[in-house]
């Protein structure tokens, strides 16, 4: 390539790539840089420590606990979101009276700021006024109000439920779009060939939806791994760190303990875990070529 051509290429692409450098490359590079130094923002010494922040993070019992909490969370939310999204997506593509209204109502949670929905869920689970307590008491399941958010299992359940409630509409919307894009002639051909409704669903629609599932899986896995707002809103990582997911732990280490070096190391570890999972998904879910 001639020098002039190279210059032209860089000039032509730079308006589009500048934001990428500024908003992605630079922050990631900065986080990586900080992960290699001792950097407490309240007394920033800034000495190069190599991989010590990583070693400290990997050896800390806190990281193990937060990874375990994150695994429990991801494993719990992912299949539920996918299955419910498929079911609701299917229902929302049917033609019945009021389907438009149902769609609007169904998508409301997605329109609420996540941190706000976290605050609302905290009140739902409140030990003194929570609606969950009120319902269970009315049904005779409990005899007095319970401090749900003081119990590690119930707190985790509350966070899982809040996340599913928030994430389900978007996943379902993708499924709705996917089902809507199935070619009519494919469905007709399958019916003419004698396929029953379930077979059409399984063989045609689910096959057609595979790329959509790939997106849903990757998107929802990443969202689950980096869950923050709902944890902040409901439990703040408690009780005693039982819902301290890894992304919330990054926040705690970075801003609560003001250790930007260790926080950056944790962020890089989080990105690495996410990348491994993405690659894994891309390899596992092979998209067939439909003819």
């Amino acid at each position, binding site marked *: 390539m001639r020098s002039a051509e190279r210059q032209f290429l*860089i000039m032509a*692409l730079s308006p589009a790539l500048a934001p990428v450098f500024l908003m992605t490359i630079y922050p990631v590079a900065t986080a*990586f840089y900080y992960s290699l130094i001792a950097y407490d923002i309240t007394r*920033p010494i800034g000495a190069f420590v190599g991989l010590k922040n990583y070693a400290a993070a990997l050896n800390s019992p806190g990281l193990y606990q937060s990874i375990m909490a994150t695994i429990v969370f991801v494993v719990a939310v992912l299949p539920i979101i996918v299955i419910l999204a498929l079911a609701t997506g299917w229902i929302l593509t049917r033609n019945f009276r009021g389907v438009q209204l149902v769609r609007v109502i169904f998508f409301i949670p997605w329109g609420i700021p996540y941190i706000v929905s976290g605050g609302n869920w905290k009140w739902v689970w*409140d030990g003194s006024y929570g609606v969950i307590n009120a319902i269970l008491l009315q049904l005779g399941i409990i005899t007095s109000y319970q401090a749900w958010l003081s119990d590690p299992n119930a707190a985790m359940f509350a966070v899982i439920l809040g996340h599913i409630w928030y994430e389900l509409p978007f996943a379902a919307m993708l499924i709705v779009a996917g089902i809507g894009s199935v070619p009519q002639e494919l469905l007709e051909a399958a019916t003419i060939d004698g396929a029953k409704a379930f077979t059409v669903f399984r063989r045609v629609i689910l096959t057609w939806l595979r790329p959509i599932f790939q997106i849903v899986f990757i998107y929802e896995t990443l969202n689950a791994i980096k869950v923050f707002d709902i944890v902040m809103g409901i439990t703040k990582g408690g009780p005693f760190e039982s819902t301290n997911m890894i992304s919330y732990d990054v926040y705690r280490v970075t801003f609560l303990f003001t250790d930007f070096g260790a926080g950056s190391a944790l962020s890089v570890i989080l990105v690495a875990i996410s990348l491994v999972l993405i690659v894994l998904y891309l390899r596992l879910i092979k998209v067939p070529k439909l003819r």
Partner: protein
Amino acid sequence: MTTVKENRSSEASSGVSRRKAIYIIGGAAVAAAVAGGAYLSMQQPPAPPSQTTAVQTATEMTTAPPTGPVDQLQFTIWSWAVDFQQYSVAEYNKKMKAINSPVNVTMLDIPQEVYRESLIARFGAGTPTDVFYNDDGTVSEFYAAGWLGTWEDYHPEVRDYLPDILDPVKPAIMAPPLQESTLWETGKKMLTIPYYSNYKAVFYNKQILEKAQIDAPPNTWDEWLDQALKIKQKGLCEYPINIILAVWQFWESLDNFVFANKDGKFFDKDLNPIFLSESSAVYRTLKWWIDGIYKYKVIDPTIVNMDDTAGDLGFANGKWAYMLDAQYSHPLLNDPGFSPIAKEYPGYCGMMRNPSGSGDVHTGACWIRPYGLSTVATKGTKEHMDNVWNFTNYEGGRVNDRYEADIKNGKLITAVRWMQLKGIPTAYKSLYSEPEVQAAFAKAHVDPDLFMEQYLDSKLKDGMLTPWWGKWSGVYGIGPARSALEAVILNRKSIMDGLNDIASLWQNLKASYGY
């Protein structure tokens, strides 16, 4: 029409393949990242600060940001009573306009639960800030980081406020803001002036006590437990005692119990933990709480997540007979518009002296919220600093009719407004003789003598005035020490295990700061 094949051949002929283009762009990205990293590394100071100069470091790390125009002031608060502060700032701006002053204040509010972390990010990034709400739990940390200026260095007359300020809260507004100990010299200057100050109060529901045929509120923990059991047995409350522990009140509530004991402290004069024995005040407090929750079932088991909103609402509706809360809730609890009980029984909510755990000690916990002077502001011109000084005095001190600082003859305009409109007390003794404040007390059924007696018999949180307090406690958030103690309160960890954990954390942090 151009085909894909043609496009490919065109690329090949020009020598600009897609792969090569990606290499070029990727190379540029890496170069930019490396250059950015190198630039950042040049910003780092070469050597760690010595112990004596630790207070300078964080500010030196960041490039001094430009301050705003001299007449534009930036005021940062946490999101509480934002409507009040909007009104207050609007009044100030209106006055400035009326006297043809170009000064204008803009206000930013940040949720209280993330206030410390947001300010750390703000100061770390060098964002222009002039005046900010400061918590007594962050004073020492921000001062040590070099983010907090000392007003006495710029306006020595600020010291004239000192005789009027209540003694218990003074340590948090003096520089250096460090706990009195043998570790630090204490030649103190006045750091700033207060936004408000208050203490923990134990409220009781007179109606419930009357129904239980209890003549007077308890004087000791033993009497408190007996009364609570009696109320529970009569079926008047499921859990007679409520303690507000969530959000910012965790340490205040814990200290309030600890202080009500002979030798009620966490640390000795060298800031070493003294709570690792079953006879310590901290151990006894946790034991009393745990027995109250699980053995006697007289303390509400939801206290770890109990914030003042839920607490005030429940108490105002007769859910508990006793509640440890911020004293400033007293007017609200006795407000007939808030409490249905207050409609039928005016003044049903009484306040008692803090019950004693041992040694007939009734000391409680207090706090102060000072206005922080940002060191970013101190880099501005003298005119800018004068504007910041006047505004700070308008918000927290005495000003004349032009809203200029006037410590000798001015009025506590905003402090009186806080008291009248929100029931928020301040640290100025003289305020309590103002007729408006006395009228506000009478309306809220607050006993002024008892109010002051408990106030003067209170202390700031033990260990709070250390630079590592935020990392240990979490301030408003759930720091590692708080997390360990929550596990104890929730009966998931033994008291001694929890105390060992927090002692070890404390000593490690203390050592990491070179003390």
